[in-house]
C-alpha cells in the first residue's frame, strides 16, 4: 500500500511538473495582460524539438535551444499583441495551430531523417529512425532521497522537476516582493496608470511574454525527455490548455500553481494506474476527461463579472494598450 501511494505521489510530482512549468510562465504573461493561447503550440514545439535536438546534440544543448525557440515563438505573439495590438485570442490560436502542424512536419518519418542530418551530419544511420531519446537522468538528493515515502516523492527526480519547484518560489518572490513584480502586476491591471508613473508598459509585456514562451517550451521538452521519451505526434494532447485553466485555478499565484499541478498530475497518474490494473474499458477515459472538464468550467467561470472581481483576474488581461487612446 505504501509502495502504491509512493509511486502515485511521485508520479503526480513528475506529471505535475509539465503543468507547473507551463503555468508558471503563463502566470507571468497574464499578470502583464497578455493571454497566450499559443501555449499548446509552444509546448508541442518544445516537445518535438527536444526529441530532435537531444538526438543531435545531447540533453544540455537541446534544453538551451528549446528555450530559445520558445522565446522566439512567443516573440511572434508579443509583436502581434503588444506592438500591433491585434486580438490576442486569434493570434494565440494561430500560434497553437502553427505549433501543432510544424511539430508534426519536422518529426514526420519521411522528413525527420534529413532534419536530423542537417542538425548533425555525423549522426549514425540508426539514430535517424528511432522514436526514442535518452531520458534526463534522475538526480537523487543525497541524504534526503533515502527518507521513506518523502524521499522518492520529492527528492528523486530529474533536474527539471527541481527547477520547476525552485522557480515557483523564486517567481512568487519576484512577483509580490520586488519592484519588478509590482510593475508587472500593475501593467496587467492598469497600463495607463503604470505608464504615467514611468513604467515601460511594452517592455514589461514583451519580457513577461518571453518568460511565458521559454517556460512553455521547457514544459514541452520536459514532457518528452523528462517524462515519456517516446515520440508520439501531438503528444501534449491539449495539456497547454489545461495549463491555461490551471493559471486561473491558481489565481495567478505561482505557489498555488504547485498545488494545482499536483492535483492535475495526480488525476492523470491515477488514470494510468487504473488502466494498468485493467479497471474497466470506459472508466479510464472518464477519469482522463476530468482535467478537460475542469478546464472548461474554469474558463467559463471567467466570463462572470463577479467571479472576475473576486478571484482577481488582471483587469487589463487581453486588452491592448495604446497611449493615444487614454
Amino acid at each position, binding site marked *: 500500500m505504501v509502495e502504491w501511494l509512493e509511486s502515485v505521489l511521485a508520479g503526480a510530482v513528475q506529471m505535475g511538473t509539465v503543468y507547473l512549468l507551463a503555468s508558471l510562465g503563463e502566470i507571468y504573461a497574464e499578470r502583464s495582460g497578455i493571454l497566450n493561447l499559443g501555449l499548446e503550440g509552444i509546448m508541442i514545439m518544445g516537445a518535438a524539438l527536444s526529441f530532435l535536438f537531444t538526438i543531435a546534440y545531447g540533453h544540455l544543448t537541446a534544453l538551451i535551444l528549446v528555450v530559445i525557440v520558445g522565446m522566439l515563438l512567443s516573440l511572434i505573439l508579443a509583436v502581434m499583441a503588444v506592438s500591433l495590438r491585434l486580438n490576442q485570442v486569434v493570434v494565440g490560436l494561430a500560434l497553437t495551430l502553427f505549433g501543432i502542424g510544424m511539430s508534426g512536419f519536422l518529426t514526420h518519418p519521411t522528413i525527420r531523417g534529413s532534419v536530423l542530418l542537417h542538425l548533425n551530419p555525423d549522426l549514425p544511420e540508426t539514430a535517424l529512425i528511432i522514436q526514442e531519446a535518452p531520458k534526463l537522468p534522475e538526480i537523487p538528493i543525497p541524504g534526503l532521497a533515502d527518507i521513506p515515502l518523502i524521499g522518492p516523492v520529492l527528492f528523486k527526480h530529474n533536474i527539471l522537476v527541481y527547477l520547476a519547484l525552485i522557480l515557483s518560489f523564486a517567481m512568487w518572490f519576484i512577483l509580490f*516582493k520586488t*519592484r519588478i513584480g*509590482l510593475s508587472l*502586476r500593475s501593467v496587467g*491591471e492598469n497600463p495607463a496608470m503604470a505608464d504615467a*508613473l514611468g513604467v515601460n508598459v511594452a517592455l514589461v509585456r514583451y519580457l513577461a511574454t518571453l518568460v511565458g514562451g521559454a517556460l512553455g517550451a521547457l514544459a514541452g521538452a520536459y514532457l518528452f525527455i523528462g517524462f515519456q521519451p517516446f515520440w508520439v505526434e501531438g503528444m501534449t494532447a491539449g495539456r497547454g490548455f489545461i495549463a491555461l485553466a490551471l493559471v486561473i485555478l491558481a489565481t495567478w499565484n505561482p505557489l498555488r500553481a504547485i498545488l494545482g499541478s499536483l492535483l492535475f498530475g495526480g488525476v492523470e497518474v491515477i488514470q494510468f494506474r487504473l488502466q494498468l490494473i485493467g479497471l474497466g474499458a470506459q472508466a479510464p477515459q472518464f477519469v482522463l476527461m476530468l482535467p478537460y472538464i475542469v478546464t472548461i468550467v474554469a474558463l467559463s467561470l471567467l466570463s462572470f463579472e463577479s467571479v472576475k472581481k473576486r478571484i482577481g483576474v488582471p483587469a487589463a488581461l487581453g486588452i491592448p494598450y495604446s497611449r493615444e487612446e487614454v
Partner: protein
Amino acid sequence: MSESPLVLMKDIVKRFPGVLANDHVTFELRRGEVHALLGENGAGKTTLMNILYGLYKPDSGEIYVKGRKANIRSPRDAIRLGIGMVHQHFRLIPTHTVTENIILGLKEAGFVINYKKMNEEIKRLAESYGWKINPDARMWQLSAGEKQQVEILKALYRKAEILILDEPTSVLTPQETRALFRAVRRMAEEGKGVIFITHKLEEVMEVSDRVTVMRKGRVVVTKNTRDTNPQELANYMVGRPVIFEIEKKELQPGDPVAVIKDLYAMSDKGVLALKGVNLEVRRNEILGLAGVTGNGQVELVEVITGLRKAVKGRVIIDGKDVTNRSPREIMELGVAYIPPETLRWGVVPSLRVVDNLFLKAYRYPPFSKSAVIDWKKVYEKAEELIREFEIITPSPFVKTRTLSGGNIQRLILARELSGIIGGGVPKLIVAAYPTKGLDVGATEFVLKTLVKYRDMGSGVLLVSEDLEEILRVSDRVAVIFDGKIMGVFKSSEADIEEIGLLMAGVKEKAKAG
C-alpha cells in the same frame, strides 16, 4: 528681487475639433497659495490643467516651472518637475494595496521592496495631514474620500510641490470635504502651490487665496479671494445674467402615468443601488430627479425602461404592471427613453443618421410591412424629422458619428418622441442627463422640447445633476440619495439650500409634493 512663480502658463492655445478649448490663456501659481480655477463645465479649466500635467500638448504657448521653461510631453515629465494631479476619476488599482499604489514606478523603493519601511513612511506622511490610512488596505476597501487621499499621497510622496485637484469635492461628503480643505491649507503653509479646480463658489471663498475665473476657453479675471464675493464671481463665470426663461403653460398635472412602488435593484457591481424608491410621474408634468451622480439615478431609469431587473417593488406605467418586462414591451406602451452617455447607449455611431432615426420605428407600419422596410417612406419621414428637430447634418445618409453632440441629442429626441407606435405623444418620457456636455443652444433646445411635450400631455422624468436646470423646467423636484428618495417638492416652493443638503444625504425630511 521677487521670487519666480511656481508655475507660469503663458498664452496657451488648445484647439479640439470644432472647439477652441483654451484661447490664449495665461495662468500663474505662486508658492504657498491655494489658487482656485473657477468656471462652468466646458470652460476649459480641466483642459488647461491637463496641458500642465502633460496629458495634452498645447497648440501654442509656453510653460515655465519655477522660473525655468519646461517642455512637458507626458505625465512622467510633469511628475519629474514636481507636478501632481488628482483626477476626478481616480487612477488606482483596486486589487493592490495603498502602499503598492503609491510606490509604483519609484526607483527609491529598492529592488526588493521593504514594505515595512514604506508602510511606515506612508502612514507618517498621511498623519501629517490629519489622515488615518492603513497602508496594507486594498484600494477597493476604501471610501471615495480615502481613495482621494491616496491619490494626493501619491503625488506628495513623489515630492510634488505643485498639486492640481480636479473637482476634488464632487465625490466627498461634507465631513470629508472639510478634512480635505484642512489638508490643502496645510500644504500651502508648507510652501506648496495648490490648484483647485471647481465650479462651486462657496469652495472658492472657503479655501482659496486667489481665484482665476474662466469662461468659454478664456481667462476672465484673476483676483485675490478676499477682494471679491460670490455674486461677483458668479457674474464673471456666466458672463451674463443667468437663467433664460423657458415658457411653460400653467397646467394642472393629470393622472399618474408612471408609479414606482418600493423599488429595489442592484448596481452592476452587485450591491443594492435602489433601496425602496417611491415616485409618481403624472400627465402634463415634469418631475425632476436631483442628486449627485451615482446615487441610483441610472439604475432607476434602467429599471423603468426594462433594461435592468428589479429585485423587489413595482413599476406601473399607464396602469399596467410592467415590472421586469422586456424593454420592447415597455416601449410599446408609449415610453420614450433618452439614455445617459448618448454616444455609447443612444446611437450606433457607425450607422447612418436615417438608420439611427428609425432604430425604434422601423419594425412597425407604416415603415415596414411584414419583414420588408419601406425605405421610401422612411426617407420622407427622415427629412421631416430633421427639419422639425433642427438636426444639422449634411444629409440623412452620413455616418452618425460625424455629428456634433448637440445634433446627436436632437436625433435621439426625434427618434424617441416621434416614434410612438400608433401615433400620438409619448405617455412617459424618461430623460437621463439629456443636456450633459451640450452647449447652451442645444441645452435650451432639449429643455424646450421636453416642456413642449409636457404641454402636449406627456409625463416627463428628468434626471440631471444640474439643480438649476431642474428647477427651471420641472413642476416638481425629487431628491435621490443613496438609492432612496429624500424628499419631493413643488419647484415653485423649493428651497435650494434644503435640496442641497438632501442631495448630500444630510437630513431626511420628506414633504408631500
